[in-house]
């Protein structure tokens, strides 16, 4: 087994560990910090089910962003929906045998990559063209877009330009899952693609990508508008009440 294969196996175990452990820790943190006051942005749903619908619209349709700015919504939606289809298509490299859904999704997933990269390019263009967005952009904002576009383009190059040895790649991936290690194909675009994906997984729990779990914990979106009917009391606020009467 080549040292390159060993390096990539180590890299992906490490990246997976950081992603899973890091996100688990963040979610635990968000969960643990109390929301001491009822602060949904109103008008807000008055039932838990209503809040689930609000959260669904927020996550699946980007409702607030749609109200806010149609350009960001269009580019952001293109990127996220493209990414979702591309990720679904990639399940075939982890799964054996292939279910009919994965066969069905394959062409959509392939061409969704264009939508994804176009969306990212639009978002990046705004960072240069709109003075307000230029002002707030940090180097990491640019780099994360560069990273995602590079992942997209390197992946697309294998689908549309120079195919990699997909059978051996799947063997490598399944080998890591089953602890039965197989050699990794050595095409440059594949190595670049995998390296950048691992990098993305590693920065996820310490970057703004935390918006993904964060939105579910946002009190302005996930709280029920029922403060006259229900008393919300954080543990530290209850302690304050006991001490002060």
């Amino acid at each position, binding site marked *: 087994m080549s040292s390159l294969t060993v390096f990539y196996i180590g890299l992906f175990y490490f990246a997976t560990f950081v992603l899973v452990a890091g996100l688990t820790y963040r979610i635990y943190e968000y969960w643990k910090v109390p929301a001491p006051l009822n602060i949904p942005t109103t*008008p807000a749903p008055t039932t838990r089910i209503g809040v689930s619908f609000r959260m669904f619209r927020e996550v699946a349709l980007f409702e*607030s962003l749609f109200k806010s700015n149609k350009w*960001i919504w269009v580019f952001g939606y293109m990127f996220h929906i493209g990414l979702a289809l591309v990720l679904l298509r990639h399940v075939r490299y982890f799964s054996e045998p292939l279910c009919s859904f994965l066969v069905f999704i394959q062409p959509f997933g392939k061409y969704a990559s264009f939508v994804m990269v176009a969306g990212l390019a639009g978002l990046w263009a705004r960072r240069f063209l709109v003075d307000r967005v230029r002002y707030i952009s940090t180097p990491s904002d640019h780099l994360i877009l560069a990273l995602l576009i590079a992942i997209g383009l390197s992946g697309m190059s294998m689908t549309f330009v120079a195919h990699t040895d997909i059978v051996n790649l799947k063997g490598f991936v399944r080998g890591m899952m089953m602890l039965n290690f197989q050699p990794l194909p050595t095409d440059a675009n594949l190595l670049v693609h995998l390296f950048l994906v691992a990098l993305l997984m590693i920065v996820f729990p310490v970057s703004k990508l935390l918006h993904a779990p964060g939105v579910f914990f946002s009190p302005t979106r996930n709280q029920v508008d029922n403060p006259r009917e229900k008393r919300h009391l954080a543990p530290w606020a209850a302690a*304050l009440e006991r001490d002060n009467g």
Partner: protein
Amino acid sequence: MAGPKFEVPKMSEYTDVPKIKEGAMAHVKSFPAAEASQTSLGFPWKLTDDWHDRAINRMGELLVKYRGLRVFMDACVHCGACTDKCHYFLGTADPKNMPVARQDLMRKVYRRYFTLPGKLVPWLVGAEDLTKETLDDWYSYYHQCSECRRCSVYCPYGIDTAEITMAGREILNTVGMGQKYTSEIIAKVFKIGNNLGLPGPALEDTLLGLEEDIEADTGVAVKMPLNVKGAEILLVTPSADFFSEPHVESLIGYAKVFHAAGASWTLSSYASEAGNFGLFNGNYETMRKVAMRIRDAALELGVKRIIVGECGHAWRIAYAFWNTLTGIGYGGNDPFSIELQKQLDPRFKQPSHICEYTWDLIQRGVLKFDKSLNDDRVITFHDSCNVARGSRMGDEPGGQFTIPRNIIRAVANNFYDMAPETIGEATFCCGGGAGILTDDLIEVRVKGALPRMNAYNAVAQEKGVNFMALICAICKAQFTKVVPYYGFDMSQIGGVHQLVSTAIKLEQD
């Protein structure tokens, strides 16, 4: 009016998004709080020697007490959706008045001290050390935010800059950089019981005077009872209602409504303030201490129902926080909550807004109006931010928009809404909320009012609107001061219950 030392923005048909002008409002410094008031709040009054560690420690404490702050520090992706949503940015073009940039004043410090990339590669992620200059920036720009939450409507993650401004002001207070206006007002509430520092006997005199005025005006002996034990309803209203114009016209309106309904009601000299500036500085303990006066008065007077007058942030606190802070509400099963719940009448929402009360009476046909008495007015309604985005009225989401408008339509013939993108949940702040309503911030106030003035001017031109009705004491005070800068007369500003007061028919005793 003395000429302003700054340029008053030109009104336009729509509010255009300006090109950014860095540092345009960096010179603004609200007056700092002095020793007396800061001491009574338990804060230092000048910059402490250990300000750096103190600020970072306080930030660390807040990050584990407030989930909102914790999540909002991480979740922002710098998408830019909020950048053109703040009235202060639209009116000043200062990029630090863009919600995301205002948040980043704190976020860059958060990243430096509380995140791994910020510790390792600060230049990459926009992380910066906390310096004295940072604190000065915080002081300047956290006092150019009215905590109106318009940005939180448009953020894809619901990031609420108000929560960050509150945390920023709390940290500033902790290191001895309090603001004079909010600090003195809270000190007055602690000492005297209301924001204006109006003592009990003066309040009694004022109410007697108002009773005489009403009787002279209408021939009906409408009462304004004070400290009546055993009254059914306790009315808690902003103290500005007792003698500021046009606020007092609404107080007269509430009294006439109670009179017409034959209600047993009272004001309290102990709880003579619905406002609660504790909210503005994000200090839970202060907010609770101020709100507890209302609980104590309710228990003392033995009232069955608590109704809140026309005040935006007061209604947010009453509606959304009183149950948590003071047990005024339902659902609590601890002794503290139960003590009050036993006394309150469960048929009513606790607390109720005066508009909920009046609208209920109108629907039941209890109140009679001569709408033509309001015919000299062509009316529009300004949704106050805390009511619009931080509370509700009635049973349905959005009742805070429909109920006040329903009342206006029931008492007046001429009503037109302003442009839809400037009302409802999208409403523009008056520009004076959350501790900005002070003369040392007049430039911020005038410029921040621009989007609202544009929308008002549009209906004034097209529909002949000459009256902006509101349900917020701060909005009333802000607009009466600021509309003359834009060429309107301050008499065009008034309360919803001022309109009720004009049209209501009172039975002769």
